[in-house]
């Protein structure tokens, strides 16, 4: 094999210019593949991280996916019963027995859970009415269950724990309404109850809409404002392993009956969008490498054509068909390896350059860096794809070379 590789290398070196041109194709292909792939994966990971971190892994809602079974059906599961015109019972909104559910969840290792009562509230300020999403939460548990603490610009969750009449609002809202820390604001609920809160902390997530409409207060205040004491309309859950959310939510829902939505389910359409996006981008970057593979096919075919006589000589010397095939496969492999060795660093340079670029995506108020995935799988993927393309491209010409019959060539030459 060493001899065959030696011959292969000599063949390539004898055609430096052609070899370099076809090498360039692979180099650019690899660099491009790596950069785009890491950009795509990076943004996907970034996106998923935001999705997973900034929202609950599972949300239990105070509703059912299907109307509850009628007692008659539960009693005679096998009987042929048809019930018509059943209207689902009007229930008081809210998760019944949420404390027991919470206790159970909190006793499970790797699970953090808290109850939330959300409500719409109207902020009347300076003669204007603004609608806010009031997130009534148990102040001591906010930190466990949301990442809002990470986005605090002034004050913190502790201030809400200290002052039960406090409210945490977004910088966006404060800026829009010219509010300051310590200001008192008056909120009205849909039932007409009015309460005054003191701004104790402010956050800034960078998502403009979120920063202008979300607010966090003590759950008890929301319960009072909406006249739903001891109620929560959802339970939010964080898991130590976010990927377990789907299975966990199914099991939970089967147990308690309430609709439990994992982040995977909630973002199903996003996931399929991501999948399609990946499909498109891998098609595009693969196309680049396929074009490069044609370059390799081209040079190796040329070498094989030019080398018919040498192939005949090698065979008359006692080289076997497979030896000949290997010589040309190795040429493809050598081009593939050389392409990776130059293409991957070039790709890394491109990635470094792209990583420096800051831009402001729509919906965010702060510029961010291009998210790039520097993990090993990206390099392995780009490298092995290029290598495989190069070897595959050389396969056909190599097989043709192996089939050269020495007599056919020698007859023409003597």
């Amino acid at each position, binding site marked *: 094999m060493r*001899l065959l590789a030696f*011959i292969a290398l*000599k*063949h390539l*070196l*004898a055609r430096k210019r052609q070899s370099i041109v076809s090498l360039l194709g692979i180099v650019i292909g690899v660099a491009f593949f790596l950069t785009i792939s890491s950009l795509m994966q990076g943004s996907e990971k970034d996106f998923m991280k935001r999705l997973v971190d900034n929202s609950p892994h599972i949300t239990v809602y105070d509703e059912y996916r299907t109307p509850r079974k009628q007692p008659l059906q539960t009693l005679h599961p096998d009987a042929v019963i048809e019930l018509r015109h059943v209207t689902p019972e009007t229930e008081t909104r809210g998760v019944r027995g949420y404390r027991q559910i919470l206790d159970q969840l909190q006793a499970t290792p790797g699970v953090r859970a808290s109850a939330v009562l959300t409500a719409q509230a109207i902020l009347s300020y300076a003669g204007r009415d603004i609608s806010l999403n009031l997130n009534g939460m148990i102040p001591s548990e906010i930190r466990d269950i949301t990442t809002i603490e990470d986005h605090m610009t002034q004050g913190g969750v502790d201030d809400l724990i200290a002052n039960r009449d406090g409210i945490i609002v977004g910088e966006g809202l404060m800026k829009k309404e010219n509010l300051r820390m310590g200001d008192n604001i008056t909120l009205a609920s849909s039932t007409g109850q009015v309460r005054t809160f003191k701004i104790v902390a402010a956050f800034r997530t960078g998502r403009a809409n979120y920063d202008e409409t979300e607010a966090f207060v003590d759950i008890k205040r929301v319960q009072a404002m909406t006249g739903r004491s001891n109620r929560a309309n959802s339970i939010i859950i964080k898991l130590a392993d976010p990927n377990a959310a789907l299975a966990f939510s199914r099991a939970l829902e089967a147990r308690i009956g309430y609709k439990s939505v994992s982040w995977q389910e909630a973002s199903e359409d996003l996931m399929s969008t991501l999948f399609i996006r990946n499909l498109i981008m891998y098609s595009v970057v693969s196309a680049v490498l396929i074009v490069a593979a044609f370059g390799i096919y081209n040079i190796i075919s040329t070498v094989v054509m030019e080398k018919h*006589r*040498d192939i005949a*000589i*090698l*065979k*008359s*010397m*006692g*080289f*076997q*068909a*497979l*030896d000949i095939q290997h010589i040309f496969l190795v040429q493809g492999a050598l081009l593939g390896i050389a392409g990776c060795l130059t293409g991957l660093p070039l790709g890394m340079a491109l990635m470094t350059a792209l990583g420096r670029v800051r831009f402001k995506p729509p919906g965010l108020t702060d510029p961010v860096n291009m998210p790039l995935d520097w993990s090993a799988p990206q390099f392995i993927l780009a490298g092995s794809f290029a290598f495989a393309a190069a070897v595959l491209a050389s396969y056909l010409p190599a097989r043709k070379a192996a089939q050269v019959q*020495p*007599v056919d060539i*020698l*007859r023409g*030459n*003597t």
Partner: protein
Amino acid sequence: MTGAAKKAAQEPQGDFLLEAREVARVLEGDVPVHLVRGVSLTVKAGDFLAITGPSGSGKSSLLYLLGLLDTPSTGEVFIGGRDASMLNDDARARVRLENLGFIFQFHFLLPEFTALENVMMPMRRLGRLSDREIKARAEKLLTDLGLGDQVKKLPRQMSGGQAQRVAIARALANDPMLILADEPTGNLDTASSRNVQMILKDIAAQGNRAVVAVTHETDFAEKAGRRIHLVDGRIAENA
């Protein structure tokens, strides 16, 4: 062929390094071309056999059959007593590697490799010797042929006669029992031609191998111990 006859045919054929039995080669087609028609011959160690004949008489075709580069349409070729018609392509390549050395009208050295590397090539493929032994043997072969100072040269940097001698060294590399040469002097000037003729004669004279050479040149044919004259694919004269 019956089973018994087949078995008999496979038995070792005395001391013959090479034996052809009624070998014929036809190129099938709309008009079949008869390259070789029923040639039988034997070659022993120490033989120097010249094959002569007019252009197109089938000399090269016969040599390819003897050298297992081509397969006879009918008849058998035995190399070292083994029936080569039974062998597949890879096994025939193996026989060529171990037992046969080819020399052609053109040196057919691999252009990217130095004289030394060209001579080392069959030995490296065979892989019986260490790299150092291979190099030493290649250098000795080249020096014996008067090319001691040419080892590092590429084929294009050498004269026709020098390159042809490198090709001879390459043919001898794996110490084959049979050298097959197709007009080895056909492309050389008179002095080089005589030189190559003498080398081939010496190789045969050493006694442990045989040389079969196709040639047009009468003085070359006269140097050979035996001569076969082909006309139209048949042996017309066997001397």
